[in-house]
């Protein structure tokens, strides 16, 4: 991402944001997105409401250390894109509800979500994609993966409610432990199991990010 100029966005004070890249530093109430906006939010755990105006593009990287239930809502008008990369590190018994609603046509939504729990925590992630009747050319892709540690519970429900056949929608959900072949590969290079698992955890969460990929914001201990 280099030396791109980035503003801090005090979202509590803003109701609308136009072109730009922002590091989110305050809790979001509701926000209207216009034109091209990139948002980066680290550990801003709260309910969020986004309205994507016509022909707007929102790229959103978000990392939450979750300790309560939250609800994230995105409403898209026409000809907009939402590309969300979201890591949830959960502690406790919590629920995340992600609602996406396409009111109009030709919206493209791509959700890449990674979920991990601390110790014996439980998380319930519900993704609801709503495509309204009489709309067309909307694309909705839900990709959610959970990596279990053996003592926790990860539940992911990807729901797509499409009231039209003029939509391309698919969802991919996997919940599982470390890939044993990847583990073997790393261990066969002399890395012990604990370190190999740490590397794979890093791989699991970082692969969805661009901005946060090379930033040491996540503690893998």
């Amino acid at each position, binding site marked *: 991402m280099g030396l791109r100029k980035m503003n801090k966005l005090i979202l509590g004070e803003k109701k609308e944001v136009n072109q730009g890249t922002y590091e989110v530093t305050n809790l979001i109430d509701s926000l209207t997105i216009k034109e091209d906006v990139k948002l980066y939010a680290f550990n801003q755990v709260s309910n969020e409401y986004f309205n994507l105006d016509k022909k707007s593009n929102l790229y959103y990287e978000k990392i939450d250390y979750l300790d309560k239930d939250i609800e994230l809502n995105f409403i898209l008008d026409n000809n907009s894109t939402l590309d969300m990369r979201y890591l949830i590190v959960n502690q406790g018994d919590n629920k995340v509800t992600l609602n996406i609603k396409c009111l109009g046509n030709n919206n493209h939504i791509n959700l890449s979500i990674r979920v991990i729990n601390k110790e014996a925590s439980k998380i319930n992630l519900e993704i609801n994609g709503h495509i309204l009747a009489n709309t067309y050319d909307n694309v909705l892709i839900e990709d959610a993966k959970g990596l279990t540690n053996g003592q926790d519970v990860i539940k992911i429900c990807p729901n797509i409610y499409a009231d039209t056949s003029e939509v391309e929608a698919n969802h991919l959900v996997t919940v599982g432990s470390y890939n*044993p*072949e*990847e583990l*073997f*590969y*790393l*261990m*066969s*290079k*002399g*890395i*012990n*199991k604990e*370190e*190999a698992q740490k*590397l*794979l955890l*890093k*791989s*699991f*969460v*970082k*692969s969805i990010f661009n901005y946060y*990929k090379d930033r040491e914001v996540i503690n893998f201990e």
Partner: protein
Amino acid sequence: MLKINNLEVKVDTKTILQNFNLTINDGEIHVLMGPNGTGKSTICKALLHHFDYKITKGNIIFNDLDITNKDTSEIASLGIFLISQNPMEIEGVSNSELIRLAYNKQTNEQVDIFELNTKLKDIAQTLKVDKQFVHRDINYNMSGGEKKKNELMQLLMLKPKFIILDEIDSGLDIDALKLVGQVLNNYYEEYKPMMLIITHHLDFLNNFKDYKVSIIKNGTIIKNGSKSLAKLIEKEGFEANTISGFEKNE
């Protein structure tokens, strides 16, 4: 020296290797040949104690140390290095990170990052890849040739004492095949490691001056010989030779 004694290996309840005996002396190259599905890749994985491959009889002695029941990473730290046919892709973990960790583990020291990067850049030049190659994710989105070069980069950095090559020559174009052969031969000439090579191609073996050959069938060694045996196999095939009955040893 590596000595495999009367080894039996099972995957679930199926016996893949039985009564498998093989000795590789210090500085010796040993080629294992055999039809598909006879256990060649199994021995590679069993040597590194892959969790799917259970050793139910026999033992493996490496430099007087019994490694039969050792953990994979401990075995690798002794200087045993496997390059498999299709190396694993791991997105999100860079080659340099992997090499740094493996190098630290092997040497019990924290390698200086600047020193490591300088060495890796030199190795990248030897392998005719861009210097940024070291910062790419492990084998991720790489061609067959790039993956093998990536594995060689690790090898040249970690300097193993025993190299296992499981069909390293598969999926390589002529230039990559030549480069891989040259790099391995140069390494062999400089460090004289033990090598176990699995291949179907004599062309690849021509990179090495001398080697021993063993033929495996149904999970057991049925014939030992010299490089002339490899030439015979290439000329006549496994079936003709194994059915007509080899001598147990040449």
